[in-house]
Each structure stands twice: as C-alpha cells, then as structure tokens.
C-alpha cells in the first residue's frame, strides 16, 4: 500500500518526454508500415503491427490526457481492426486516410512538445474513417473487443517470489481470518510500453478501490529503470478473480493479467517468502483451476531456495540494455569541454615550444614536450570518440522521402520509383537536422519539373515509371548526397532566357551549360510555367543553396537534356572541431578549413592577370580565379610591395579558387564556435575559433567564397 500511495504522487509531466519519444516512434512506425502495406496488402502480421502501434499510441495519449490524439487513433485502430480480421481489403483510400492520420498526430505531437494545447482539427478524418469502417461493417458485423485478447494469447509467464516483511506477512494472514482472498497478480505490459511505472500506478489505483495492495515486485521505481515488461502484485480482496482481471485489462497497454490464489508459506519461515510458481513449470492461465496452481506453488516451495531467485529477473533484464538515450544538451556539453581541452592543449604546446627556443637543453622542457606529444595523441582519440557520439546515419532523414514521393505521385499522376542508397552513411547530428528541408525541396522539384508524365515518357521511349535516386557516401572529409532523376533534364535555353530577362546575366559568352544551370540558385528564380501546388512559387533553389551554404557545404548541378538531372551536395562531416590552416592578412589572422585546402602556392605578382574584373592565374594549364582577402574584407593594401604572394587554393568538388594572403602561419586544430545570432550569416565567414593565445580568430566560409566567384563569372 505504501508503494501505491507514494507512486500516485508521480507527476505526469515528468513522463512527457518519454511519451513524446515513444509516440513519435510509433507514428514513424505507422507511417513506414502503411507504405509497406500499400505494396503488400495481404500481409496480416504487418496489419497486426500497425494495429499495435495505433493501440499503444492511443493508450499512451489517453494516460497523458491528450483526447484529440486518442479519438483519432481510436478511429484508426477500429479501421485497422477491420483489416486485421479480414473484413475489409486494403485500398488506396484506406492507406490515404491512415497516412493522413499519422500526419495529424504528428502535428498534434508537435503542439504537445511545445507545451501548447492541441488545436489541430481532426473531425473530418474521424468521420471519414467511421464511414469506411461502417461501410465495411455492412458486409459483416464487427466482433466485440474481447476477441482481441484471444488473438494475442498466451506466452510463458515466469514466476515470482514475494519476499515479505513480517508486517506484510501479518496483513496477508489476517486476511485469511476475515475470509478475504489473497491473490497473486501477474500483470504483463505490452511490448514497447514506455511509461511502465504509470501503467503500474494505474493498475494499483484500480486495485485500491477493490481491496488492499500488499506488495509490488519489482517496485514502481525499479520498474521505470529496468526493462521488465511485467510486474507482480500481492493483493488482498473480497472480489472475484475474474472481476479483478477484467478490471485490470481495462487499463490500456496491459497485454495480459494473471490472477492466481496465493497462500502464505508455513508459519516457520515468514521472511523467506514464497515461490508461487517457477520458470520450469507450465504457465498458469486463468483457465486453470485455482486448486492446481496452489498445488504447484506448494510443491515448489518445498525444494527451492527462495532468496536467491528474488532479484534475478530485473537484473538479467538490465544487462540486456545496449544503448542508452542521452539528452543532447549533455552531449553537447561534453563536446564543448573536449573543445576547451583542445584549446588548452594548443596553449601547452605553444608554451613548450617557446620554452624550447629559450632553453634547449633543460630536461624539464624536453619532458614537457614529450608529455605534450602524448597528450596530443590522447586528445585526438578522445575527440574522435566524442565526435562519433554525434554521428547519426542519414537513413533517419531519407526514411521520410518514400512517403513524400508517393504523395506527390498521387497528386501529379506521375509514376515514380524512389531508390535509396547509402542510408548507413553517418554524419553529424546538426547536419542531419538541417539537411532534411533542402532535400525535400530538391525531391519535390525532381518530381514536379524533372520526371515527365507517363505518356510523355513512353513517347520518348523511356520506361513509364520514372526513377529518383537518393545516394549518400563519404568522400574524404566530406559527405556527398546526390539526388538524381531520369527525367527531362534542365532546359538550359529556358533558364538562360529567364535569367537574362531578370537581368541575372549579361552575356552568353563564356557561360558553360553548367554555369547556366547554376543560375537557378539565384534568388527569385523559378522556371515552372505554372505555379503548382508542389513547387514553383519562386521561392526555390536559392533557399536550398543558402541552407547548404550555412552548413558549410556546396551544391552543384549536372544535367543532360532528356537524360536527367543530378543535384550533388557536399557537406562537411562534422561541425565541431576541424583542422585549419591559419593565414595572415594584414594584421589579422583567419582560419581556413584544411579539408577544403587543395594546395598552397607562391605566385609572382606579374603572373596575376585580370580577366574581366577578376584576377586570375595560370596553374598547370588551367586558369585559377583569385580572391584577395584584403579587398574582400575591406583591409588596407599593404604599403610594402611584395614580389610574391601566397595563394591558398581551396576547393569543394571540382570547383577551386585561390585566396591571396600575406603569410601562412601553419596548421592547427580549431574548435568551431558560432558567432551567435547577432552575427550569423555574414558573407565569407563560417564561424569563429579561439586560438592558444586566447584571441578570437574567424573561420573562412569556403562555400560562400566559392559561390561568390561562380556568380561573378
């Protein structure tokens, strides 16, 4: 009883995060399951899975009191139940409605997450589902709810020992005198129940109305942390066995409940407790007679030492945990600390070097430098391990696109297959979070403008079904994400015409096809003749480009008329710690991400030619456009005229540009820090870092510098 009282104080709000995580997972499951079901309508076990997802979603939402979600999922559950019982066949209409339900629930969960009241309107959906469910019911009347439990029937139930304290033993034995019954309840939760403690509390609350709860194993607190899906209750009551069971089963997410008579051990060993049932024995279901189960318990008790068994169940389960969920804020804090350590290490190294130039022979200095080298290695390992914590497979983003393509296909009447490769490619969590929307935009574009209508495709001898391929792979320090379609390709002439109409280009000469194709990244550019629901509102690829540039990446197009279009996105693997080349310009120091540095050159001033307004230099037969950082960043030209200048050649993918600087300072590991909201998005600057001497140094944004030059050309 004391357990029950204590636990009733649990604030549901504490479980909100659990609830959200779990529900979002269930919604994802529903979504992907439905898409699978659309292709494989006969798959009953799939329908069962979907039903279970909907059911636990409903249950969890009910506990948390989110009625709209409950109503919506309840209707969906009814519909799935029909499918499950084979009373209805899977149709596109049903899939559509159910997918719409998952969308609505997602929206509702988003509101819950922001601690808002749920205001999403869902009435039309529930009535739509009701209509479908009832039309189906004309054929055959639906069966009562009870049948469900039979379908999911019996599993083996391991036994439990109640190690009772003397007072608890007394309570139980007193019950016998007042002719109350003592029951052992074994309550099994549905798999994936997130808020097990809440369920247990709900069960206990119900039981408290019927009688007296003596003991719960595992305790409510243990239940929340361990993986066990069941708990046992010792219960004293006047009620009948079957009434108790029925009552418990009304709590949602309860898979099953066994109610068995419980007898105290003979009076000589009250604190040892009692084995009611052991794992070797057959499970005792409600159908079995009370007599029988009591007999089993007695026979077992005779030869089994009890204590040893008591805690085994939870402990075993705890060992099975291979992953833990960690708050990202905690992880980011860890990464920050490692970052600070990296900075401190650079300082140590600098001190060591300074000491060495001053006093080369001091053995203390020598050993300091040795220790520094060792520390460096450790730091590298530590950094790498910490960075791995943040890596997430890109499949988590890719998984939303099958649905997108399907919906777009239904809207446009096109037939498209989405092929996905490289889902397992990992990249930084922040990048993952930011890349979803740009990719969505690109895929929408591919469906709307890329892939032709089926008739058109057949007419030019292509297969009726178009293909969009989504691919991701590692490429050095970058990750490449490629979205390609086998559609009509970009219309270069049309883009050029549009661009010159809008005054984006002045002349045709010197523009390659790919240069023209890249014009679609200019703000306000959209070539769609008609504004469609899918894309073509004029807010287009420039937004995509901006998002990718913000991530330190670059986007490129390859297109071939009649054959298709590929969008190639290159992104840095991680955003936190990078190798950088420090360069000096005037009196200022800047950091260039080493991953984009191709080479460094010493160039004679007279070799620099100006083409148009851009300085260029010949490099192994190719012209390399140059950027003067001094000009770019409004620094005064130095008075001493050097005959030679340093050029840092940087590139992403096939595009390269040379940056003119005064000095190269050497390479160093730097921790990328944001410039904050106030200074975000300045052209040419990706962020800042703190060097060993404590000074802030800005990191160049190679992506934006490159795009700058490309546009100028």
């Amino acid at each position: 009883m004391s357990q029950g009282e204590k636990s009733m104080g649990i604030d549901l709000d504490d479980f909100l995060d659990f609830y959200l995580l779990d529900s979002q997972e269930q919604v994802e499951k529903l979504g992907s399951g439905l898409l699978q079901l659309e292709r494989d309508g006969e798959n009953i076990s799939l329908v069962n899975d979907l039903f279970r997802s909907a059911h636990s979603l409903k249950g969890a939402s009910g506990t948390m009191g989110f009625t709209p979600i409950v109503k919506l999922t309840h209707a969906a559950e009814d519909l799935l139940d029909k499918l499950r019982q084979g009373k209805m066949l899977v149709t596109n209409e049903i899939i559509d409605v159910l997918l719409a339900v998952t969308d609505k629930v997602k929206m509702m969960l988003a509101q819950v997450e922001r601690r808002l009241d749920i205001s999403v309107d869902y009435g039309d959906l529930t009535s739509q589902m009701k209509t479908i469910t009832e039309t189906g019911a004309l054929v055959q009347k639906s069966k009562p709810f009870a049948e469900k439990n039979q379908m999911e029937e019996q599993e083996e139930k391991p036994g439990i020992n109640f190690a009772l304290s003397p007072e608890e033993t007394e309570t139980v034995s007193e019950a016998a005198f007042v002719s109350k019954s003592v029951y052992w309840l074994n309550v099994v939760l549905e798999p994936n129940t997130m808020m097990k403690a809440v369920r247990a509390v709900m069960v206990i609350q119900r039981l408290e109305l019927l009688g007296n709860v003596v003991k719960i194993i595992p305790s409510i607190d243990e239940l929340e942390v361990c993986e066990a899906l069941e708990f046992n209750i010792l219960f004293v009551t006047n009620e009948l066995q079957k009434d108790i069971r029925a009552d418990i089963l009304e709590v949602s997410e309860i898979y099953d409940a066994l109610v068995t008579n419980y007898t105290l051990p003979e009076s000589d060993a009250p604190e040892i407790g009692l084995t009611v049932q052991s794992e070797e024995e057959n499970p005792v279901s409600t159908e079995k007679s009370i007599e029988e189960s009591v007999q089993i318990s007695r026979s077992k008790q005779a030869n089994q030492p009890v204590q040893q068994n008591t805690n085994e169940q939870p402990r075993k389960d705890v060992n099975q945990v291979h992953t833990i969920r960690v708050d990202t804020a905690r992880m980011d804090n860890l990464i920050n600390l490692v970052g600070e350590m990296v900075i401190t290490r650079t300082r140590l190294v600098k001190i060591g070097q300074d000491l060495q130039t001053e006093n080369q022979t001091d053995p203390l200095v020598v050993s300091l430098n040795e220790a520094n080298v060792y520390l460096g290695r450790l730091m590298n390992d530590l950094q790498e391990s910490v960075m791995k914590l943040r890596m997430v497979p890109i499949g988590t983003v890719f998984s939303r696109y099958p649905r997108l393509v399907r919906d777009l296909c239904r809207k446009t009447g096109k037939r498209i297959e989405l092929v996905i490769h490289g889902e397992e490619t990992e990249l930084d969590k922040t990048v993952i979070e930011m890349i979803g929307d740009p990719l969505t935009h690109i895929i929408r574009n591919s469906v709307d403008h890329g892939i032709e209508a089926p008739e058109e495709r057949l007419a030019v001898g292509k297969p009726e079904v178009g293909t969009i391929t989504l691919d991701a792979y590692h490429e050095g320090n970058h990750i490449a994400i490629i979205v390609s379609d086998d559609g009509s390709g970009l219309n270069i002439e049309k883009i050029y015409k549009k661009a010159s109409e809008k005054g984006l280009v002045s002349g045709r000469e010197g523009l390659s096809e790919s240069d023209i194709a890249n014009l679609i990244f200019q703000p306000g550019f959209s070539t769609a003749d008609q504004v469609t629901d899918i894309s073509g509102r004029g807010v287009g690829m420039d937004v995509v480009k901006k998002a990718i540039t913000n991530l330190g990446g670059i986007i490129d197009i390859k297109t071939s008329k009649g054959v298709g279009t590929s969008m190639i996105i290159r992104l840095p693997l991680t955003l936190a710690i990078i190798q950088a080349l420090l360069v000096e310009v005037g009196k200022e120091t800047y950091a260039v991400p080493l991953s984009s540095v191709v080479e460094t050159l010493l160039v004679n001033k007279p070799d620099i030619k100006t083409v148009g307004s851009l300085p260029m230099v010949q490099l192994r037969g190719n012209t390399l456009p140059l950027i003067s950082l001094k000009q770019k960043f409004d620094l005064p030209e130095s008075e001493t005229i050097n005959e030679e200048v340093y050029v840092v050649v940087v590139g992403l993918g096939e595009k390269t540009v040379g940056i003119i600087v005064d000095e190269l300072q050497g390479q160093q590991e730097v921790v990328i820090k944001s410039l904050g909201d106030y200074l975000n998005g300045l052209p040419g600057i990706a962020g800042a870092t703190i060097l060993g001497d404590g000074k802030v140094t800005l990191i160049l944004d190679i992506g934006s510098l490159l795009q700058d030059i490309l546009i100028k050309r």
Partner: protein
Amino acid sequence: MAEEQMVTFSLGSEEFGVDIMKVQEIIRIPPVTRVPKARSYIEGVINLRGNVIPIVNLRSRFGMPPGEETDLSRIVVLQIDNRVFGIMVDSVTEVLWLDSEAIEPPPPIALGMDSNYIRGVGKIGERLLILLKLDQLMGGDSMNEQIA
C-alpha cells in the same frame, strides 16, 4: 514605492544607466577581433571564457565621435533574451537605486541621440541619467539587411 537598481556608466560627457538584472558582468577590454562585413557599430568579437561574444561600440551606435581607449574603459556584458553581447563604455561609474517616479519619458529631441534607444531619463538631484532600451541596441534594424 518601486525602485530600480541601475549600473551607470559614462560615454563622452553623458551618463547612462542600464538595469542591473541585464548586466552579466563588467570586464576590462580584451583583444577584440574585427569582424569584416558586420555592421559598423559592431566593434568585433571577444573571447569570454571560451565563448565568442559580439561587442557593440556604443559611441558609433549613438553617432558620437570615436573616443580613446583608456585604463578606465570597460566592456559591460549584457544578457538579453538569453543572448549575450558586450557594450564598450568609457568608464563604469556606480551602482545605484532609482525611484521609478524619478524616471521621465525620453524628451522629443533626445540629447542628439536616436530616441529608439532611450527608455527614459532618470533624475538624481542635478544629474541626468539616460536609461537605455537594451533590446534595441542589437536588434531594431535587422542584421539580415546587410547579408542580402
């Protein structure tokens, strides 16, 4: 009677006050890194114990002539809506309590300054304290204009 606690500082010949609850700390001026292409009143960024924070040059923000950095010059680090930035001032003078009744709305011709930045004027005997509207210092005109 309601009172407000203020940190006061001087800039040229004027004295200013900011709500003490918005002041995170007051520091000496460390090396400041210029940020190219940022707005003219952004002096640059500094390292505040491992965090990079922007510094506003109040003189330039208020259209005053540039001043010399002295031993008394300080950066007042402010925290507004969870965002941290610093303002450069000639010197920090004191911390004082001010009756809300002693605060008057900004005069129409606000001491030659844009009245957008002024919350009011506090009177302490003969002294006039210009109370700053801090959220307008960094925001107001959006940074994005410059980017586009």
